[in-house]
């Protein structure tokens, strides 16, 4: 069954990633769609952040990662450094887990 699963998962993922680029072939999007897309980034990014730092599977949960990512947000807000922010996120999270 594992090979059927791998093949099925590959086909489904390929189709999902291909759908947008294949369906929208123009260089310019319709104005209304373009307006939505500018706002898609904050919506999706915020959802990715909260589901990764405030949830564990289907439970809401806070932990070391919550604190590490919050600290990294402060760093990027104050310094604008993406690399600094990633280092702080991993270091604070690892440090808290080591306690």
């Amino acid at each position, binding site marked *: 069954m594992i090979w059927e699963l791998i093949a099925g*998962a590959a086909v489904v993922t*390929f189709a999902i990633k291909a759908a947008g680029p*294949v369906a*929208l072939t123009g260089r310019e999007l319709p104005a209304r769609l373009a307006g939505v897309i500018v706002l*898609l980034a904050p*919506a999706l990014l915020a959802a*990715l952040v*909260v589901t990764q730092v405030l949830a564990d599977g289907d439970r809401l949960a806070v932990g070391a990662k919550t604190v590490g990512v919050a600290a990294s947000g402060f760093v990027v807000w104050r310094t604008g*450094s993406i690399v600094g*922010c990633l280092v702080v996120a991993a270091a604070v999270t690892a440090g808290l887990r080591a306690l």
Partner: protein
Amino acid sequence: MSGPPAGTAADETPGARLRAGALAGIPFGIASFALATSFGVVAHDAGISGVAATVMSAIVFAGASQFATIAIIVSGGSLGAAIVTTALVNSRFLPMGVAFAPAFTGGRLKRALQGQAIVDASWGLAARGDGTFDRWLLFGSTAVQYGTWVAGTAAGAFGGSLLGDTDRFGFDAIYPAFFLALLIGELRHGRALGVAALGAAIALVLVPFAPVGLPVLLASLAALVGLHWRRDA
């Protein structure tokens, strides 16, 4: 390298943008390797051969969905349930692909293949902040993560976890930290704050009830709501 590399000048050559993308992708490549070794170990413990786990990473290449499908199989779920779970967890790539579409070129097959390079961190890196995207940054960043994802899976599946429990390095905090950094950049536009808050609220409210993956997909509806705010403003 401070500030998002998405600021790379559009007039630089594709080769230069590809290299900039690869360089910016290195932290995610490292995180990806650590997560992939965990995946390889989890797959091994679930009774999946090293070859199968490595092939899965090479042709599915979508980390969260791979963990989720293995979890479904281990808990006795059906093949259909596992594939539906893959679709749900990866459903966020649909709006991401729609947003990225104008940046791709060529016929349908070529566009479909270029779309395969869309993964979360690269999508964020390639965003210019005005709704447009740089495909060469995407390709460069994804190439690094693809290599480390497949290599990490093989290392974990065949060699066990060389690093022990990779959670102790805190690498799993790198992705959400990056998304938060991009989000903070986005919030300089006024309307984005409301959309981000609504997107986060939608996702959190759905987490306890909806299957994994659906909360992030449905959070994209916040963008549609935000469009109406603009018209009313």
